[in-house]
Protein backbone atom coordinates (compact mmCIF):
# COMPACT_ATOMS: atom_id res chain seq x y z
CA UNK A 1 0.00 0.00 0.00
CA UNK A 2 1.55 3.31 -1.10
CA UNK A 3 1.86 6.24 1.24
CA UNK A 4 -0.30 8.42 -0.95
CA UNK A 5 -3.54 6.53 -0.29
CA UNK A 6 -6.09 8.50 1.63
CA UNK A 7 -7.68 6.77 4.57
CA UNK A 8 -11.42 7.10 3.98
CA UNK A 9 -12.12 6.16 7.59
CA UNK A 10 -9.94 8.85 9.11
CA UNK A 11 -11.98 11.00 11.46
CA UNK A 12 -12.41 14.71 10.65
CA UNK A 13 -10.08 17.05 12.48
CA UNK A 14 -11.10 18.81 15.66
CA UNK A 15 -11.15 22.16 13.89
CA UNK A 16 -13.51 20.95 11.18
CA UNK A 17 -15.87 19.62 13.81
CA UNK A 18 -15.58 22.78 15.91
CA UNK A 19 -16.72 24.92 12.97
CA UNK A 20 -20.14 23.27 13.12
CA UNK A 21 -20.79 24.44 16.67
CA UNK A 22 -23.78 26.78 17.12
CA UNK A 23 -22.04 30.07 17.77
CA UNK A 24 -24.87 32.23 19.08
CA UNK A 25 -25.88 30.19 22.14
CA UNK A 26 -22.27 29.39 22.94
CA UNK A 27 -21.26 33.06 22.80
CA UNK A 28 -24.20 34.12 24.93
CA UNK A 29 -23.46 31.39 27.46
CA UNK A 30 -19.82 32.43 27.63
CA UNK A 31 -20.57 36.13 28.08
CA UNK A 32 -23.49 35.91 30.48
CA UNK A 33 -22.66 32.77 32.40
CA UNK A 34 -19.34 31.06 32.14
CA UNK A 35 -16.81 33.88 31.97
CA UNK A 36 -18.51 35.78 34.84
CA UNK A 37 -18.64 32.59 36.88
CA UNK A 38 -14.89 32.18 36.80
CA UNK A 39 -13.63 35.76 36.46
CA UNK A 40 -16.18 37.88 38.34
CA UNK A 41 -13.45 39.10 40.69
CA UNK A 42 -11.58 40.65 37.78
CA UNK A 43 -14.34 42.02 35.60
CA UNK A 44 -16.90 43.23 38.12
CA UNK A 45 -16.59 47.02 38.49
CA UNK A 46 -17.78 47.15 42.11
CA UNK A 47 -17.90 45.10 45.29
CA UNK A 48 -21.20 43.22 45.14
CA UNK A 49 -21.65 43.15 48.92
CA UNK A 50 -20.77 46.60 50.27
CA UNK A 51 -23.73 48.98 50.53
CA UNK A 52 -23.18 52.49 49.19
CA UNK A 53 -26.21 54.46 50.27
CA UNK A 54 -25.16 57.64 48.46
CA UNK A 55 -25.63 55.94 45.09
CA UNK A 56 -28.78 53.98 45.89
CA UNK A 57 -31.42 53.26 43.22
CA UNK A 58 -29.41 54.62 40.30
CA UNK A 59 -31.08 53.84 36.93
CA UNK A 60 -29.20 51.95 34.17
CA UNK A 61 -26.98 53.87 31.79
CA UNK A 62 -29.47 54.41 28.95
CA UNK A 63 -32.26 55.38 31.31
CA UNK A 64 -30.65 58.37 32.91
CA UNK A 65 -27.85 56.61 34.73
CA UNK A 66 -24.08 56.69 34.31
CA UNK A 67 -21.50 54.23 33.05
CA UNK A 68 -20.26 53.84 36.58
CA UNK A 69 -23.31 51.72 37.37
CA UNK A 70 -24.13 50.39 33.89
CA UNK A 71 -27.15 48.33 34.96
CA UNK A 72 -28.15 50.56 37.86
CA UNK A 73 -27.99 49.97 41.61
CA UNK A 74 -30.34 48.44 44.17
CA UNK A 75 -31.87 50.10 47.22
CA UNK A 76 -28.62 49.69 49.18
CA UNK A 77 -26.61 51.23 46.35
CA UNK A 78 -24.94 47.98 45.27
CA UNK A 79 -24.06 47.66 41.58
CA UNK A 80 -26.53 45.29 39.83
CA UNK A 81 -23.98 44.32 37.15
CA UNK A 82 -21.41 43.29 39.75
CA UNK A 83 -23.99 41.33 41.70
CA UNK A 84 -25.10 39.46 38.57
CA UNK A 85 -21.50 38.70 37.64
CA UNK A 86 -20.72 37.42 41.11
CA UNK A 87 -23.95 35.43 41.26
CA UNK A 88 -23.08 33.48 38.11
CA UNK A 89 -20.59 31.32 40.00
CA UNK A 90 -23.24 30.07 42.44
CA UNK A 91 -25.75 29.43 39.71
CA UNK A 92 -23.12 27.51 37.74
CA UNK A 93 -21.96 25.51 40.75
CA UNK A 94 -25.47 24.58 41.85
CA UNK A 95 -26.66 23.57 38.40
CA UNK A 96 -23.50 21.65 37.47
CA UNK A 97 -23.10 19.79 40.75
CA UNK A 98 -26.85 19.17 40.94
CA UNK A 99 -26.89 17.74 37.42
CA UNK A 100 -23.77 15.72 38.15
CA UNK A 101 -25.54 14.19 41.15
CA UNK A 102 -28.58 13.48 38.99
CA UNK A 103 -26.49 11.98 36.17
CA UNK A 104 -24.42 9.74 38.41
CA UNK A 105 -27.31 8.48 40.53
CA UNK A 106 -29.79 8.22 37.65
CA UNK A 107 -27.41 6.60 35.18
CA UNK A 108 -26.09 4.04 37.64
CA UNK A 109 -29.53 3.02 38.83
CA UNK A 110 -30.92 3.01 35.29
CA UNK A 111 -28.05 0.92 33.95
CA UNK A 112 -28.24 -1.69 36.65
CA UNK A 113 -32.05 -1.77 36.71
CA UNK A 114 -32.30 -2.26 32.96
CA UNK A 115 -29.58 -4.89 32.95
CA UNK A 116 -30.51 -7.10 35.90
CA UNK A 117 -34.29 -6.61 35.68
CA UNK A 118 -36.25 -8.43 38.37
CA UNK A 119 -37.11 -6.94 41.74
CA UNK A 120 -34.35 -4.33 41.61
CA UNK A 121 -35.77 -2.93 38.38
CA UNK A 122 -39.22 -2.80 39.96
CA UNK A 123 -37.89 -1.00 43.01
CA UNK A 124 -35.96 1.60 41.02
CA UNK A 125 -38.87 2.30 38.71
CA UNK A 126 -41.24 2.81 41.65
CA UNK A 127 -38.72 5.23 43.15
CA UNK A 128 -38.65 7.03 39.80
CA UNK A 129 -42.43 7.26 39.85
CA UNK A 130 -42.36 8.65 43.38
CA UNK A 131 -39.66 11.14 42.51
CA UNK A 132 -41.53 12.36 39.43
CA UNK A 133 -44.76 12.66 41.35
CA UNK A 134 -43.26 14.61 44.24
CA UNK A 135 -43.01 18.36 43.49
CA UNK A 136 -39.41 19.55 43.79
CA UNK A 137 -40.61 22.67 45.64
CA UNK A 138 -42.21 20.59 48.36
CA UNK A 139 -39.03 18.64 48.83
CA UNK A 140 -37.02 21.86 48.86
CA UNK A 141 -39.24 23.31 51.59
CA UNK A 142 -38.94 20.13 53.64
CA UNK A 143 -35.17 20.03 53.22
CA UNK A 144 -34.78 23.71 54.00
CA UNK A 145 -36.81 23.13 57.14
CA UNK A 146 -34.82 20.06 58.13
CA UNK A 147 -31.26 20.98 57.15
CA UNK A 148 -31.61 24.71 56.90
CA UNK A 149 -31.26 26.37 53.51
CA UNK A 150 -27.70 25.98 52.28
CA UNK A 151 -25.65 25.30 49.19
CA UNK A 152 -25.83 21.59 50.01
CA UNK A 153 -29.60 21.50 50.36
CA UNK A 154 -30.05 23.24 47.01
CA UNK A 155 -27.71 20.78 45.30
CA UNK A 156 -29.60 17.86 46.84
CA UNK A 157 -32.92 19.27 45.66
CA UNK A 158 -31.65 19.78 42.12
CA UNK A 159 -30.10 16.30 42.02
CA UNK A 160 -33.24 14.73 43.41
CA UNK A 161 -35.45 16.56 40.94
CA UNK A 162 -33.39 15.35 37.96
CA UNK A 163 -32.11 11.82 38.64
CA UNK A 164 -35.39 10.14 37.77
CA UNK A 165 -35.34 11.45 34.18
CA UNK A 166 -31.89 9.97 33.66
CA UNK A 167 -32.77 6.68 35.34
CA UNK A 168 -35.90 6.23 33.25
CA UNK A 169 -34.29 7.12 29.93
CA UNK A 170 -31.13 5.09 30.53
CA UNK A 171 -33.10 2.05 31.66
CA UNK A 172 -35.26 2.17 28.54
CA UNK A 173 -32.20 2.21 26.30
CA UNK A 174 -30.44 -0.51 28.26
CA UNK A 175 -33.48 -2.76 27.87
CA UNK A 176 -33.10 -2.38 24.13
CA UNK A 177 -29.32 -2.76 24.08
CA UNK A 178 -29.02 -5.75 26.37
CA UNK A 179 -30.91 -7.89 23.88
CA UNK A 180 -28.86 -6.71 20.95
CA UNK A 181 -26.61 -9.11 19.14
CA UNK A 182 -23.42 -7.28 19.97
CA UNK A 183 -24.05 -7.88 23.65
CA UNK A 184 -24.72 -11.55 22.91
CA UNK A 185 -21.57 -11.66 20.84
CA UNK A 186 -19.41 -10.18 23.57
CA UNK A 187 -20.92 -12.68 25.99
CA UNK A 188 -19.91 -15.48 23.66
CA UNK A 189 -16.48 -13.85 23.47
CA UNK A 190 -16.22 -14.35 27.21
CA UNK A 191 -16.83 -10.81 28.52
CA UNK A 192 -18.08 -10.44 32.10
CA UNK A 193 -21.30 -8.65 33.07
CA UNK A 194 -19.46 -5.63 34.43
CA UNK A 195 -17.48 -5.38 31.25
CA UNK A 196 -20.57 -5.64 29.07
CA UNK A 197 -22.44 -3.08 31.13
CA UNK A 198 -19.70 -0.47 31.28
CA UNK A 199 -17.70 -1.13 28.13
CA UNK A 200 -20.46 -2.02 25.72
CA UNK A 201 -23.77 -0.64 26.94
CA UNK A 202 -22.70 2.57 28.68
CA UNK A 203 -20.92 4.09 25.62
CA UNK A 204 -24.11 3.56 23.65
CA UNK A 205 -26.17 5.59 26.09
CA UNK A 206 -23.69 8.44 26.64
CA UNK A 207 -25.20 10.41 23.76
CA UNK A 208 -28.56 10.32 25.47
CA UNK A 209 -27.06 11.28 28.81
CA UNK A 210 -25.17 14.23 27.32
CA UNK A 211 -28.24 15.57 25.51
CA UNK A 212 -30.49 15.08 28.51
CA UNK A 213 -27.95 16.74 30.84
CA UNK A 214 -27.62 19.76 28.56
CA UNK A 215 -31.36 20.14 28.37
CA UNK A 216 -31.53 19.84 32.17
CA UNK A 217 -29.19 22.83 32.65
CA UNK A 218 -32.12 25.14 32.00
CA UNK A 219 -34.36 23.27 34.40
CA UNK A 220 -31.65 23.24 37.07
CA UNK A 221 -31.07 27.00 36.78
CA UNK A 222 -34.78 27.71 36.90
CA UNK A 223 -35.14 25.51 39.95
CA UNK A 224 -32.23 27.19 41.69
CA UNK A 225 -33.63 30.62 40.86
CA UNK A 226 -37.09 29.66 42.09
CA UNK A 227 -35.69 28.39 45.37
CA UNK A 228 -33.67 31.56 45.89
CA UNK A 229 -36.65 33.71 44.96
CA UNK A 230 -38.70 31.96 47.61
CA UNK A 231 -35.92 32.38 50.13
CA UNK A 232 -35.14 28.68 50.48
CA UNK A 233 -32.10 28.69 48.22
CA UNK A 234 -28.55 29.62 49.10
CA UNK A 235 -29.07 32.16 51.91
CA UNK A 236 -28.13 35.85 51.85
CA UNK A 237 -25.87 37.63 51.25
CA UNK A 238 -24.86 35.36 48.36
CA UNK A 239 -26.15 37.20 45.27
CA UNK A 240 -27.77 34.26 43.44
CA UNK A 241 -29.89 35.35 40.51
CA UNK A 242 -33.18 34.27 41.99
CA UNK A 243 -32.40 36.32 45.10
CA UNK A 244 -31.57 39.37 42.98
CA UNK A 245 -34.91 39.09 41.19
CA UNK A 246 -36.67 38.77 44.51
CA UNK A 247 -34.79 41.82 45.88
CA UNK A 248 -36.46 44.08 43.35
CA UNK A 249 -39.90 42.60 43.79
CA UNK A 250 -41.25 45.51 45.84
CA UNK A 251 -39.81 48.14 43.49
CA UNK A 252 -40.87 46.63 40.17
CA UNK A 253 -43.22 49.52 39.32
CA UNK A 254 -40.64 52.24 39.95
CA UNK A 255 -37.13 50.78 39.95
CA UNK A 256 -37.70 47.93 37.52
CA UNK A 257 -34.01 47.33 36.70
CA UNK A 258 -33.30 45.68 40.04
CA UNK A 259 -35.33 42.63 39.00
CA UNK A 260 -35.13 42.98 35.26
CA UNK A 261 -31.42 42.44 34.64
CA UNK A 262 -30.99 39.36 36.85
CA UNK A 263 -34.15 38.02 35.19
CA UNK A 264 -32.65 38.72 31.79
CA UNK A 265 -29.49 36.86 32.80
CA UNK A 266 -31.60 33.84 33.79
CA UNK A 267 -33.57 34.06 30.54
CA UNK A 268 -30.49 34.27 28.30
CA UNK A 269 -28.67 31.48 30.10
CA UNK A 270 -31.61 29.08 30.12
CA UNK A 271 -32.50 29.88 26.51
CA UNK A 272 -28.95 29.37 25.29
CA UNK A 273 -28.54 26.17 27.28
CA UNK A 274 -31.75 24.82 25.75
CA UNK A 275 -30.69 25.84 22.25
CA UNK A 276 -27.38 24.11 22.77
CA UNK A 277 -29.21 21.03 24.03
CA UNK A 278 -31.51 21.03 21.01
CA UNK A 279 -28.56 21.31 18.69
CA UNK A 280 -26.81 18.44 20.46
CA UNK A 281 -29.95 16.33 20.26
CA UNK A 282 -30.20 16.86 16.53
CA UNK A 283 -26.52 16.14 16.18
CA UNK A 284 -26.62 12.94 18.21
CA UNK A 285 -30.16 11.90 17.27
CA UNK A 286 -30.61 8.36 18.54
CA UNK A 287 -33.06 7.65 15.74
CA UNK A 288 -30.34 8.23 13.18
CA UNK A 289 -27.97 5.99 15.06
CA UNK A 290 -27.75 2.38 14.10
CA UNK A 291 -28.10 0.10 17.04
Amino acid at each position, binding site marked *: *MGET*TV*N*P*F*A*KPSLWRRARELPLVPITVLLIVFIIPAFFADFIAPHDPYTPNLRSRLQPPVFFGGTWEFALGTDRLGRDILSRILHGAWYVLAVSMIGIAVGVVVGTTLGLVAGYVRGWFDGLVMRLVDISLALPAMLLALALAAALGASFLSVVIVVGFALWAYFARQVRAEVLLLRN*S*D*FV*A*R*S*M*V*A*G*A*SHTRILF*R*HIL*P*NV*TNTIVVLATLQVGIAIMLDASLSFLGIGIPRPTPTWGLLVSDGRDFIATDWWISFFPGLAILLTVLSANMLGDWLRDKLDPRQ*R*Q*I
Partner: protein
Amino acid sequence: MTDAPLLEVKDLKVEISTKAGSFFPVNGHNFTVNAGETLGIVGESGSGKSMTAMSLVRLLPKHAAHIRSGSIKLNGRDLLTLSDKEMRRVRGSEIAMILQDPQTSLNPAFTVGDQISEALSLHTTGPRRTLRDRAIDALRKVKVAAPEHRVDAYPSELSGGMRQRVVGAIAISCQPKIIIADEPTTSLDVTVQAQYLKLLRELQEDTGMAILFITHDFGIVANLCHRIVVMYFGRIVESGPVDKIFASPAHPYTEALIAAVPKLHGQQGRLRTIEGLPPSPTEQITGCPFAPRCEHADARCFAELPPTVDADSDGDHAASCWRVVDR
Protein backbone atom coordinates in the same frame (compact mmCIF):
# COMPACT_ATOMS: atom_id res chain seq x y z
CA MET B 1 -12.23 -41.93 13.03
CA THR B 2 -10.67 -43.47 16.09
CA ASP B 3 -9.74 -40.51 18.29
CA ALA B 4 -12.30 -38.97 20.58
CA PRO B 5 -14.46 -36.28 18.96
CA LEU B 6 -13.76 -32.61 19.68
CA LEU B 7 -17.29 -31.91 20.82
CA GLU B 8 -19.56 -34.60 22.12
CA VAL B 9 -23.14 -33.80 23.07
CA LYS B 10 -25.04 -36.53 24.89
CA ASP B 11 -28.73 -36.61 25.72
CA LEU B 12 -28.94 -32.82 25.97
CA LYS B 13 -32.32 -31.56 27.12
CA VAL B 14 -33.25 -27.89 27.47
CA GLU B 15 -36.55 -26.93 29.02
CA ILE B 16 -38.31 -23.61 28.57
CA SER B 17 -40.92 -22.76 31.16
CA THR B 18 -43.55 -20.20 30.28
CA LYS B 19 -46.91 -19.33 31.72
CA ALA B 20 -48.50 -21.30 28.91
CA GLY B 21 -46.61 -24.42 29.93
CA SER B 22 -43.16 -25.85 29.58
CA PHE B 23 -41.60 -27.59 26.60
CA PHE B 24 -38.28 -28.93 25.37
CA PRO B 25 -36.83 -27.02 22.40
CA VAL B 26 -33.80 -29.30 22.69
CA ASN B 27 -35.02 -32.77 23.45
CA GLY B 28 -32.41 -35.46 23.92
CA HIS B 29 -29.72 -34.38 21.44
CA ASN B 30 -26.84 -36.71 20.69
CA PHE B 31 -24.23 -35.57 18.23
CA THR B 32 -20.48 -35.16 17.85
CA VAL B 33 -18.23 -32.80 15.98
CA ASN B 34 -14.71 -33.88 15.07
CA ALA B 35 -11.74 -31.56 14.78
CA GLY B 36 -11.59 -29.85 11.41
CA GLU B 37 -15.07 -30.97 10.49
CA THR B 38 -18.19 -28.99 9.58
CA LEU B 39 -21.44 -30.22 11.03
CA GLY B 40 -24.61 -28.69 9.64
CA ILE B 41 -27.67 -28.38 11.84
CA VAL B 42 -30.67 -28.03 9.57
CA GLY B 43 -34.24 -27.38 10.50
CA GLU B 44 -37.05 -24.91 10.05
CA SER B 45 -37.68 -21.88 12.26
CA GLY B 46 -38.53 -22.87 15.80
CA SER B 47 -37.09 -26.34 15.51
CA GLY B 48 -34.57 -25.58 18.25
CA LYS B 49 -31.43 -24.93 16.18
CA SER B 50 -30.47 -21.70 17.90
CA MET B 51 -31.41 -23.06 21.32
CA THR B 52 -28.98 -25.88 20.68
CA ALA B 53 -26.26 -23.38 19.80
CA MET B 54 -26.89 -21.18 22.82
CA SER B 55 -26.94 -24.15 25.18
CA LEU B 56 -23.50 -25.21 23.92
CA VAL B 57 -22.02 -21.92 25.20
CA ARG B 58 -24.37 -21.92 28.19
CA LEU B 59 -25.92 -18.57 27.28
CA LEU B 60 -29.57 -19.53 27.41
CA PRO B 61 -31.90 -16.77 28.56
CA LYS B 62 -31.82 -16.88 32.35
CA HIS B 63 -34.95 -17.82 34.30
CA ALA B 64 -36.73 -18.99 31.14
CA ALA B 65 -34.59 -21.80 29.79
CA HIS B 66 -32.71 -24.46 31.69
CA ILE B 67 -30.50 -27.33 30.70
CA ARG B 68 -32.25 -30.29 32.30
CA SER B 69 -29.94 -33.17 31.53
CA GLY B 70 -27.12 -34.39 29.37
CA SER B 71 -23.48 -33.52 28.89
CA ILE B 72 -21.52 -31.29 26.52
CA LYS B 73 -17.95 -32.51 26.33
CA LEU B 74 -15.37 -30.32 24.66
CA ASN B 75 -12.07 -32.20 24.44
CA GLY B 76 -13.37 -34.57 27.09
CA ARG B 77 -14.25 -31.79 29.57
CA ASP B 78 -17.92 -31.45 30.46
CA LEU B 79 -18.86 -27.79 29.97
CA LEU B 80 -21.96 -28.18 32.13
CA THR B 81 -19.84 -28.78 35.23
CA LEU B 82 -17.69 -25.67 34.81
CA SER B 83 -18.10 -22.61 36.99
CA ASP B 84 -19.27 -19.37 35.39
CA LYS B 85 -15.75 -18.02 35.49
CA GLU B 86 -14.26 -21.08 33.85
CA MET B 87 -17.03 -20.99 31.26
CA ARG B 88 -16.17 -17.38 30.42
CA ARG B 89 -12.64 -18.50 29.69
CA VAL B 90 -13.93 -21.19 27.34
CA ARG B 91 -16.16 -18.77 25.44
CA GLY B 92 -14.23 -16.91 22.82
CA SER B 93 -11.01 -18.82 23.29
CA GLU B 94 -12.25 -22.37 22.64
CA ILE B 95 -15.76 -21.82 21.29
CA ALA B 96 -16.51 -18.75 19.21
CA MET B 97 -19.74 -17.73 17.62
CA ILE B 98 -20.90 -15.90 14.52
CA LEU B 99 -24.42 -14.59 14.80
CA GLN B 100 -27.07 -14.09 12.19
CA ASP B 101 -27.21 -10.35 11.73
CA PRO B 102 -23.96 -8.44 11.15
CA GLN B 103 -25.91 -5.16 11.39
CA THR B 104 -26.43 -5.65 15.07
CA SER B 105 -23.67 -7.94 16.24
CA LEU B 106 -21.07 -5.17 16.24
CA ASN B 107 -21.14 -2.41 18.83
CA PRO B 108 -21.92 0.86 17.00
CA ALA B 109 -19.92 2.91 19.50
CA PHE B 110 -16.50 1.40 18.82
CA THR B 111 -14.25 0.98 15.83
CA VAL B 112 -13.79 -2.40 14.27
CA GLY B 113 -10.21 -2.52 15.55
CA ASP B 114 -11.31 -1.87 19.14
CA GLN B 115 -13.75 -4.73 18.96
CA ILE B 116 -11.23 -7.22 17.63
CA SER B 117 -8.69 -6.01 20.19
CA GLU B 118 -11.20 -6.56 22.95
CA ALA B 119 -11.62 -10.23 22.09
CA LEU B 120 -7.85 -10.56 21.93
CA SER B 121 -7.22 -8.80 25.23
CA LEU B 122 -9.82 -10.95 27.00
CA HIS B 123 -8.10 -14.20 26.16
CA THR B 124 -4.51 -13.58 25.25
CA THR B 125 -1.61 -11.82 26.86
CA GLY B 126 0.84 -9.58 25.14
CA PRO B 127 1.73 -5.91 24.91
CA ARG B 128 -1.26 -3.63 24.38
CA ARG B 129 0.34 -1.69 21.56
CA THR B 130 0.55 -4.76 19.35
CA LEU B 131 -3.19 -5.33 19.67
CA ARG B 132 -3.83 -3.00 16.77
CA ASP B 133 -1.38 -4.89 14.59
CA ARG B 134 -2.97 -8.16 15.57
CA ALA B 135 -6.41 -6.74 14.78
CA ILE B 136 -5.12 -5.74 11.33
CA ASP B 137 -3.77 -9.28 10.89
CA ALA B 138 -7.15 -10.73 11.83
CA LEU B 139 -8.86 -8.47 9.28
CA ARG B 140 -6.35 -9.55 6.65
CA LYS B 141 -7.13 -13.20 7.38
CA VAL B 142 -10.80 -12.66 6.60
CA LYS B 143 -9.78 -10.90 3.37
CA VAL B 144 -10.90 -7.40 4.23
CA ALA B 145 -9.30 -5.03 1.73
CA ALA B 146 -7.10 -2.24 3.11
CA PRO B 147 -7.19 -3.60 6.69
CA GLU B 148 -4.82 -0.92 7.96
CA HIS B 149 -7.51 1.66 7.15
CA ARG B 150 -10.60 -0.34 7.97
CA VAL B 151 -9.30 -1.06 11.44
CA ASP B 152 -10.33 2.53 12.27
CA ALA B 153 -13.77 2.28 10.70
CA TYR B 154 -16.98 2.21 12.71
CA PRO B 155 -19.42 -0.61 11.89
CA SER B 156 -21.86 1.85 10.32
CA GLU B 157 -19.21 2.71 7.72
CA LEU B 158 -19.00 -0.86 6.42
CA SER B 159 -21.27 -2.95 4.22
CA GLY B 160 -23.14 -5.98 5.49
CA GLY B 161 -20.73 -8.49 3.97
CA MET B 162 -17.77 -6.56 5.32
CA ARG B 163 -19.31 -6.44 8.79
CA GLN B 164 -19.91 -10.17 8.78
CA ARG B 165 -16.25 -10.62 7.85
CA VAL B 166 -15.32 -8.47 10.83
CA VAL B 167 -17.52 -10.65 13.04
CA GLY B 168 -15.65 -13.61 11.57
CA ALA B 169 -12.34 -11.91 12.33
CA ILE B 170 -13.39 -11.47 15.96
CA ALA B 171 -14.47 -15.10 16.14
CA ILE B 172 -11.20 -16.52 14.79
CA SER B 173 -8.94 -13.98 16.51
CA CYS B 174 -8.29 -16.23 19.51
CA GLN B 175 -7.91 -19.42 17.47
CA PRO B 176 -10.94 -21.26 18.81
CA LYS B 177 -11.24 -25.00 18.31
CA ILE B 178 -14.82 -24.71 17.18
CA ILE B 179 -16.93 -21.93 15.70
CA ILE B 180 -20.67 -21.97 16.01
CA ALA B 181 -22.13 -20.13 13.05
CA ASP B 182 -25.82 -19.39 13.57
CA GLU B 183 -27.19 -18.65 10.09
CA PRO B 184 -24.33 -16.21 9.36
CA THR B 185 -25.33 -15.70 5.75
CA THR B 186 -29.10 -15.23 5.93
CA SER B 187 -28.86 -11.45 5.87
CA LEU B 188 -26.35 -11.35 3.03
CA ASP B 189 -27.21 -11.45 -0.65
CA VAL B 190 -26.28 -14.59 -2.57
CA THR B 191 -23.00 -13.42 -4.12
CA VAL B 192 -21.68 -12.15 -0.82
CA GLN B 193 -23.03 -15.31 0.78
CA ALA B 194 -21.01 -17.49 -1.60
CA GLN B 195 -17.86 -15.45 -0.89
CA TYR B 196 -18.42 -15.78 2.82
CA LEU B 197 -18.88 -19.55 2.68
CA LYS B 198 -15.72 -19.83 0.61
CA LEU B 199 -13.90 -17.78 3.23
CA LEU B 200 -15.16 -20.02 6.02
CA ARG B 201 -13.94 -23.09 4.13
CA GLU B 202 -10.52 -21.55 3.59
CA LEU B 203 -10.24 -20.50 7.22
CA GLN B 204 -11.13 -24.01 8.24
CA GLU B 205 -8.42 -25.47 6.02
CA ASP B 206 -5.86 -23.03 7.41
CA THR B 207 -6.66 -23.38 11.08
CA GLY B 208 -8.17 -26.86 11.35
CA MET B 209 -11.06 -25.55 13.42
CA ALA B 210 -14.39 -27.28 13.50
CA ILE B 211 -17.55 -25.46 12.42
CA LEU B 212 -21.04 -26.04 13.69
CA PHE B 213 -23.14 -24.48 10.98
CA ILE B 214 -26.76 -23.73 11.71
CA THR B 215 -28.95 -23.06 8.73
CA HIS B 216 -32.25 -23.80 7.07
CA ASP B 217 -30.71 -23.77 3.62
CA PHE B 218 -29.93 -27.18 2.15
CA GLY B 219 -27.92 -25.54 -0.62
CA ILE B 220 -25.42 -24.18 1.90
CA VAL B 221 -25.28 -27.53 3.66
CA ALA B 222 -24.36 -29.35 0.46
CA ASN B 223 -21.74 -26.72 -0.25
CA LEU B 224 -20.03 -26.54 3.10
CA CYS B 225 -20.80 -29.37 5.50
CA HIS B 226 -19.31 -32.78 5.97
CA ARG B 227 -22.10 -34.15 8.09
CA ILE B 228 -25.66 -33.05 8.81
CA VAL B 229 -28.06 -33.19 11.70
CA VAL B 230 -31.69 -32.57 10.75
CA MET B 231 -33.91 -31.17 13.48
CA TYR B 232 -37.66 -31.14 13.76
CA PHE B 233 -39.65 -29.99 16.79
CA GLY B 234 -36.70 -30.06 19.16
CA ARG B 235 -35.55 -33.50 18.13
CA ILE B 236 -32.84 -34.79 15.85
CA VAL B 237 -34.72 -36.81 13.26
CA GLU B 238 -31.79 -37.76 11.08
CA SER B 239 -28.03 -37.48 11.09
CA GLY B 240 -25.31 -38.63 8.76
CA PRO B 241 -22.72 -37.69 6.15
CA VAL B 242 -23.89 -35.12 3.67
CA ASP B 243 -23.64 -37.29 0.56
CA LYS B 244 -25.60 -40.13 2.12
CA ILE B 245 -28.36 -37.85 3.28
CA PHE B 246 -28.72 -36.26 -0.13
CA ALA B 247 -28.53 -39.59 -1.92
CA SER B 248 -30.81 -41.57 0.33
CA PRO B 249 -32.63 -39.56 2.97
CA ALA B 250 -34.01 -41.95 5.54
CA HIS B 251 -36.53 -39.71 7.29
CA PRO B 252 -39.59 -38.50 5.36
CA TYR B 253 -39.00 -34.97 6.68
CA THR B 254 -35.48 -34.84 5.25
CA GLU B 255 -36.77 -36.29 2.02
CA ALA B 256 -39.46 -33.64 1.80
CA LEU B 257 -36.97 -30.85 2.59
CA ILE B 258 -34.61 -31.98 -0.15
CA ALA B 259 -37.49 -32.30 -2.58
CA ALA B 260 -38.42 -28.70 -1.81
CA VAL B 261 -35.05 -27.39 -3.05
CA PRO B 262 -35.26 -26.16 -6.67
CA LYS B 263 -33.10 -28.08 -9.14
CA LEU B 264 -30.83 -26.43 -11.66
CA HIS B 265 -30.96 -29.17 -14.28
CA GLY B 266 -33.75 -31.06 -15.96
CA GLN B 267 -37.44 -30.49 -15.95
CA GLN B 268 -38.57 -28.53 -12.93
CA GLY B 269 -42.23 -29.00 -12.18
CA ARG B 270 -44.01 -27.35 -9.29
CA LEU B 271 -41.81 -27.43 -6.21
CA ARG B 272 -43.00 -29.82 -3.57
CA THR B 273 -44.06 -28.32 -0.30
CA ILE B 274 -44.61 -29.88 3.09
CA GLU B 275 -48.30 -29.63 3.92
CA GLY B 276 -49.37 -28.22 7.25
CA LEU B 277 -47.46 -26.47 9.99
CA PRO B 278 -45.11 -27.71 12.68
CA PRO B 279 -46.90 -28.32 15.98
CA SER B 280 -47.04 -25.53 18.54
CA PRO B 281 -44.12 -25.88 20.96
CA THR B 282 -46.33 -26.40 23.99
CA GLU B 283 -48.39 -29.15 22.35
CA GLN B 284 -48.14 -32.54 24.00
CA ILE B 285 -47.23 -35.11 21.41
CA THR B 286 -46.95 -38.80 22.16
CA GLY B 287 -46.03 -40.14 18.76
CA CYS B 288 -43.68 -38.93 16.04
CA PRO B 289 -43.98 -35.10 15.87
CA PHE B 290 -43.83 -35.19 12.09
CA ALA B 291 -46.64 -37.73 11.75
CA PRO B 292 -49.48 -35.22 11.06
CA ARG B 293 -47.57 -33.92 8.01
CA CYS B 294 -46.03 -37.19 6.92
CA GLU B 295 -47.44 -38.95 3.85
CA HIS B 296 -46.33 -42.35 5.14
CA ALA B 297 -47.74 -42.00 8.64
CA ASP B 298 -49.80 -44.83 10.11
CA ALA B 299 -51.45 -45.48 13.45
CA ARG B 300 -48.19 -46.45 15.17
CA CYS B 301 -46.55 -43.14 14.16
CA PHE B 302 -49.24 -41.22 16.02
CA ALA B 303 -49.10 -43.49 19.05
CA GLU B 304 -45.43 -44.04 19.75
CA LEU B 305 -42.22 -42.06 19.32
CA PRO B 306 -39.85 -43.95 17.02
CA PRO B 307 -36.37 -44.73 18.42
CA THR B 308 -33.21 -43.53 16.67
CA VAL B 309 -31.73 -46.41 14.69
CA ASP B 310 -28.99 -46.85 12.11
CA ALA B 311 -30.20 -46.36 8.59
CA ASP B 312 -27.47 -48.46 7.02
CA SER B 313 -24.76 -50.88 8.07
CA ASP B 314 -21.90 -48.31 8.20
CA GLY B 315 -23.07 -46.94 11.51
CA ASP B 316 -22.73 -43.25 10.56
CA HIS B 317 -26.25 -42.60 9.28
CA ALA B 318 -29.10 -42.68 11.76
CA ALA B 319 -32.74 -41.68 11.68
CA SER B 320 -35.71 -41.65 13.96
CA CYS B 321 -38.57 -43.13 11.98
CA TRP B 322 -40.65 -46.30 12.20
CA ARG B 323 -40.11 -46.98 8.52
CA VAL B 324 -36.35 -47.18 9.15
CA VAL B 325 -36.87 -49.38 12.19
CA ASP B 326 -38.93 -51.80 10.09
CA ARG B 327 -36.44 -51.92 7.27
